[in-house]
């Protein structure tokens, strides 16, 4: 019974060995251990199921009904009419395209910037604490606050960006320039998280392999592309998957900066507006279920298509 044994096998190995020794009494011990385990997990599992699984099933049920809170008496079962209404509407498809464009652009930029940041943090042989504190500020700052800061910076009346670049542009009156500000805000806010996950993956790359390649005459560029990146692939995949799913839910930044004007609406914005602003629970729930389905598809593509192993390498949802 060493500490290492307990650590390596989440405790169950030693317990099993003990159970084996004690023979008959083991079954009742194992049973009571099982019961205690379930009891300790029950509160957390119950809360999670009640607040996620039940509502998503409820959303599925609502999505099959005509149910508008402004006309509650007109409620009735309509089958898949709501889905037909959403899927035959150009706004949904346009919003899906907007969301995918913003997601793809921000994740790609973040991956490149995150790599650069991770390298600086890795190589910062002085001031490591300074760098780490600095990059945690964007991670910790409220998204709404970040969105306002960037909006005010680009706004032609309050901002300094036009003065700095010598332009006279109203950034939020065109789609592409609104995209630029929205994506820049997202990238600023979430690159630190990406870079920390990449740094963690980078630390796992065995230095011996890198040094061996150096001895064999590989250039820094070759070492990066042939040794470091392939070995970091699991960490990169997980970081990209988490950020992709997170970016796909984009809501706060767009809500604050354009409210979906100039055709920058995301799927979360249309879901929110149908449900909460227009109080159409039936139609809004159909949008919710479709968003949920999109997230499942993205996760499926990453896990099955690219082989992202989530259980082994984990990020989290800030």
């Amino acid at each position, binding site marked *: 019974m060493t500490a290492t044994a307990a650590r390596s096998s989440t405790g169950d190995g030693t317990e099993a060995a003990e159970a084996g020794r004690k023979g008959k009494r083991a079954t009742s011990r194992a049973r009571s251990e099982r019961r205690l385990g379930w009891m300790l997990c029950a509160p957390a599992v119950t809360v999670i199921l009640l607040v996620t699984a039940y509502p998503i099933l409820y959303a599925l049920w609502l999505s099959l009904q005509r149910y508008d809170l402004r006309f509650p008496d007109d409620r009735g079962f309509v089958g898949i009419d709501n889905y037909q209404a959403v899927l035959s509407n150009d706004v949904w498809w346009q919003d899906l395209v907007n969301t995918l464009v913003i997601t793809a652009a921000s994740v790609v930029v973040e991956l490149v910037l995150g790599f650069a940041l991770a390298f600086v943090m890795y190589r910062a042989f002085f001031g490591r604490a300074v760098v780490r504190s600095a990059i945690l500020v964007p991670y910790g700052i409220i998204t709404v606050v970040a969105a*306002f800061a960037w909006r005010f910076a680009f706004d032609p009346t309050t901002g300094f960006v036009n003065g700095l670049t010598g332009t006279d542009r109203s950034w939020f009156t065109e789609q592409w320039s609104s995209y630029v500000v929205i994506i820049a805000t997202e990238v600023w806010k979430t690159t630190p998280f990406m870079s920390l996950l990449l740094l963690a993956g980078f630390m796992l790359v065995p230095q011996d392999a890198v040094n061996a390649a150096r001895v064999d005459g590989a250039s820094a560029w070759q070492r990066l592309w042939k040794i470091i990146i392939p070995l970091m692939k699991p960490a990169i995949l997980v970081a990209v998957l988490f950020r992709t799913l997170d970016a796909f839910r984009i809501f706060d930044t767009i809500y604050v900066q354009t409210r979906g004007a100039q055709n920058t609406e995301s799927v979360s914005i249309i879901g929110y507006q149908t449900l909460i602003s227009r109080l159409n629970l039936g139609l809004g729930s159909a949008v919710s279920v479709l968003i949920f389905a999109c997230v499942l598809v993205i996760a499926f593509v990453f896990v099955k298509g690219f082989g992202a192993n989530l259980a082994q390498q984990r990020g989290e949802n800030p």
Partner: protein
Amino acid sequence: MNRRRTSDKVFWAGGIVIVVVYALLPVVWILSLSLKPTDEITNGKFLPQDPSFDNFSAIWKDPQFPSALRNSLGIALIATLLAVVLATFAAYAIVRLDFPGKALIMSGALAIAMFPPVAIIGPLFNMWRSLHLFDTWFGLIIPYMTFTLPMAIWTLSAFFREIPWDLDKAARVDGATPFQAFRKVIAPLAAPGMFTSAILVFIFAWNDFLFATALTSTNRARTVPAAITFFTGSSQFDFPTGQIAAASVVVTIPIIVMVLVFQRRIVAGLTSGAVKG
């Protein structure tokens, strides 16, 4: 490793400066905006010429911001406490006990981490209205707790796996009571992990906007991120830029303090699963 040359040092020092400027520029900008008096807001300059605290006194006079700050603090702290307690139970069981279903709990928790919150705001909105939880503290505490439980369970399990649990047996052999063994040996070892997950949960609850705007309607439970978007100027044409900036600065201060004091812990928490597997 080979000796570092001066040019190398300069290169990386430059990198550090760029990173710090990148991270802090928008924060300095919102601070400078909050210190600009009304007639300077639109002058397009980065720094205020004649800094004043007018915007700060304005937001404290308006009833909206103080109550939003109170709501934010109360809701985030209670959600943090509940999530960490529940996650500690679960993580302890997962690390220390043998029972069927724990792999399912861990993978289920991962799946929840990817869950899009917008998919459930409609049902929650409807449920909360009939349960009288709409526009209450608990109406927000419950979803915050739920959405942070998965990450708290993962972080805590990663930390708990590193604890040499048998130390507590050793302490008892040496004559400590079970409670003493827990208090003097196990609790100090478990505390850093619990503390780290508490910080991450708090940041999530402090940051949320979607639930806060969908599930509240008045100052009773509206938190700062939602309240800021409801700020109105003295007239319809007078957008309250300075006041939004001042409120932003106030709610950013706790985050900056936390990041400065606990940066090592936060990084360990964010990457715990990734590093330790």
